[in-house]
């Protein structure tokens, strides 16, 4: 299980960076910092705004 968890974590790194850049651009520095500190927030924000961001 830890190997699977690590693989999922690694696979999510690239989308994490893409969404994090969008988060900084769209919502500003404070939300961007929160996105770094809490990756879950970054992904949820990206998921909710996927259509408007074209991602």
């Amino acid at each position: 299980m830890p190997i699977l968890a690590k693989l999922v974590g690694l696979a999510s790194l690239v989308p994490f960076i893409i969404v994090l850049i969008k988060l900084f651009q769209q919502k500003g520095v404070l939300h961007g910092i929160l996105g770094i500190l809490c990756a879950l927030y970054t992904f949820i924000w990206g998921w909710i705004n996927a259509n408007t961001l074209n991602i």
Partner: protein
Amino acid sequence: MNRVLFASLLGDRKMATAICGAALLHLGCTAAGHFGWSCPILSASGVPCPGCGLSRATLALLRGEVRHALTLHAFAPVLLGALTLLFAAAVLGPEARQRLSEIIRKIEMRTRITAWMLLTLLAYWTLRLALDGRQFIALVT
């Protein structure tokens, strides 16, 4: 820097519900001993991010193990408080949610508390890595 962050999350029911749902799912998986979603920064670099250890610390806090929770991550009470407010925002009606959001907005505007919390969390993470990085990594991995 924009002063208001948390109030905007509280005012958005969809976002509050999604964050609460994902957090509860993640905490539930971690509590049940299944693997939770692992941090991409930790998986890629081997270095824990500032939020690593927060899930287990929050669970320890919920079990009443305050000392253990604070050893794992000192911001567990803050996360628990934030999740409680987000849960309230998710279940409250539109008027009550707007009132709650407005109260938090005023507090954020006056004190910049969210920005200070995030900066303090960054400083806490830096200090943990600098002072005893190996123990920190062993604790959260």
